């Protein structure tokens, strides 16, 4: 399957960026809404255990109108803020965990190809008007992939595997690096971390609620409806947060692709690079699966990869609602290449 199997159009990156910006906003708003809702449910449980005779709706109304202070919600917001602060300060140490990597600078580039890599990143940095240069790493691995992390001078980095560097030409390499740089300038790592941290807090809170309601001593006084809601949420919430997080991840991938076209003002190199990487993963599925499997801590990078390695794993690539990346045809279509 090559580029000739697709109808080439110029694509509309402005429209793509706008659309996915809107989708991101929707996801974030619904995420916060869920967070606040779970906080209020906790507060209602606590409040109704103090006033067992008060009807639920009245408890809820009192909390919303601040007649009763929603302590649990406030505490949850505080814990969320602190955890996010810690996560933002620490995350940059883990991204390269377990890989065999080396930093590339103009002086440490050993070959023309490595110099070229540094050059294209620098060119894209100029095009994006970003006023810092991300660190550039090469990972010694045969599979073709790349990822980015960070959003500031201190933390921004892009990493690319040796396989990708060797198999792409200059323009394709540039498209890939523009994609990665777009993740950095869109501050995607902040969003990913935020959703991950908040979902974990949510799941802990709902677990505590569940056990205290089911096994708590005062469970006879609890309203049955409230108990039902908590039991349903206990099993539904992990799925909802995961689907939301994955939807967000796919949205940000579309945005990074559109950002790459925005920087290069050309959509063909990106399309060629994606097709090449896809084809290469198909051809070497077995060896790559082994190689990915051999690298420790692969899961910290999975969502940030340019190309989702789980597509070569038939079990993991079942449903599109449960994948971190849109599939190849969707991505190509978004940048203006429709399948013939």
């Amino acid at each position, binding site marked *: 399957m090559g580029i000739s199997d697709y109808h080439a159009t110029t694509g509309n990156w402005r429209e793509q960026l706008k659309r996915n910006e809107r989708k991101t906003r929707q996801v974030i708003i619904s995420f916060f809404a869920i967070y606040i809702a779970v906080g209020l449910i906790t507060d209602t449980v606590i409040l109704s255990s103090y006033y067992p005779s008060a009807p639920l709706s009245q408890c809820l109304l009192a909390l919303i109108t601040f007649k009763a202070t929603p302590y649990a919600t406030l505490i949850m917001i505080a814990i969320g803020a602190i955890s996010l602060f810690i996560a933002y300060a620490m995350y940059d140490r883990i991204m390269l965990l377990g890989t065999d990597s080396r930093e590339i600078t103009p002086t440490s580039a050993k070959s*023309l190809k490595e*110099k*070229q890599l540094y*050059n294209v990143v*620098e*060119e*894209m940095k*100029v*095009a*994006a*008007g970003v*006023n810092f240069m991300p660190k550039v790493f090469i990972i010694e691995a045969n599979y073709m992939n790349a990822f980015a992390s960070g959003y500031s001078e201190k933390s921004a980095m892009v990493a690319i595997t040796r396989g990708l560097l060797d198999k792409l030409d*200059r323009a394709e390499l540039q498209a890939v690096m523009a994609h990665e740089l777009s993740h950095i300038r869109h501050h995607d790592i902040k969003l990913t971390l935020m959703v991950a941290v908040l979902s974990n807090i949510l799941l802990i809170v709902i677990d505590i609620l569940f056990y205290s309601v089911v096994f708590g001593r005062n469970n006879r006084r609890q309203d049955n409806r409230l108990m039902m809601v908590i039991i349903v949420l206990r099993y539904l919430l992990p799925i909802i947060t995961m689907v939301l997080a994955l939807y967000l991840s796919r949205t940000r991938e579309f945005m990074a692709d559109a950002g790459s076209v925005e*920087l290069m*003002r050309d959509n063909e190199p990106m399309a060629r690079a994606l097709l090449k990487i896809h084809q290469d993963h198909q051809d070497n599925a077995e060896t790559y699966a082994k190689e990915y499997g051999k690298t420790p801590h692969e899961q910290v990078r999975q969502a940030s990869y340019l190309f989702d390695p789980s597509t070569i794993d038939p079990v993991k690539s079942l449903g599109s609602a449960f994948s971190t990346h849109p599939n190849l045809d969707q991505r190509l279509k978004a940048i203006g290449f429709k399948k013939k």
Partner: protein
Amino acid sequence: MSTFLIAVLIIVVLLFFWVIGVYNKLISLIEAINNNKRQIDIQLDRRFKVFQSLIESVKKYMDYEKTTLKDVVALRNQAEAAKASGNEQERINAEEGISRVASGLNVVFEQYPDLKASQNVLQLQEEIVNTENKLSYAKQAYNDSLERYNAKKKSFFESMVVGLFPSKLDKDFTYWSLPEDKIQEHEDYTVKF
């Protein structure tokens, strides 16, 4: 009556913060344009230095470069003079001339097979491509920042804030572009071998 007063007060305060927000946003957009304009200068300057050292280093292989070097220096002086006198158009023309010399240099490499194969020349070619790319991306970034500023400045509501502080917020920048006759000339241009 007092609740009405409070409501009005809240709206006034919100409006005040919104105006401050728009003001600060526009200032940062203007400064981004200024910075991106300087970035073009930086890239032009870098290109001149890179080309000078490139030509110096390939001089021993071919005579062509002796005249090329002269061309580049002459064009560069022209550009500098135009910049000093504030003649944007002449400056753009001179810089365009240097770009043509650069592509000429790549053609020259093609004519010397053993030279073409040498690792040094591959590095030089990469350097030329890199330099030219950076320059055009700097121009693109400048135009992009201009687009963002103009869109914000001219959109409804924001334009009212601009009306309040015209001296600070209403700047007139021109997009980096080629003159009409140049565009026509480049459009008609085809490669002949």
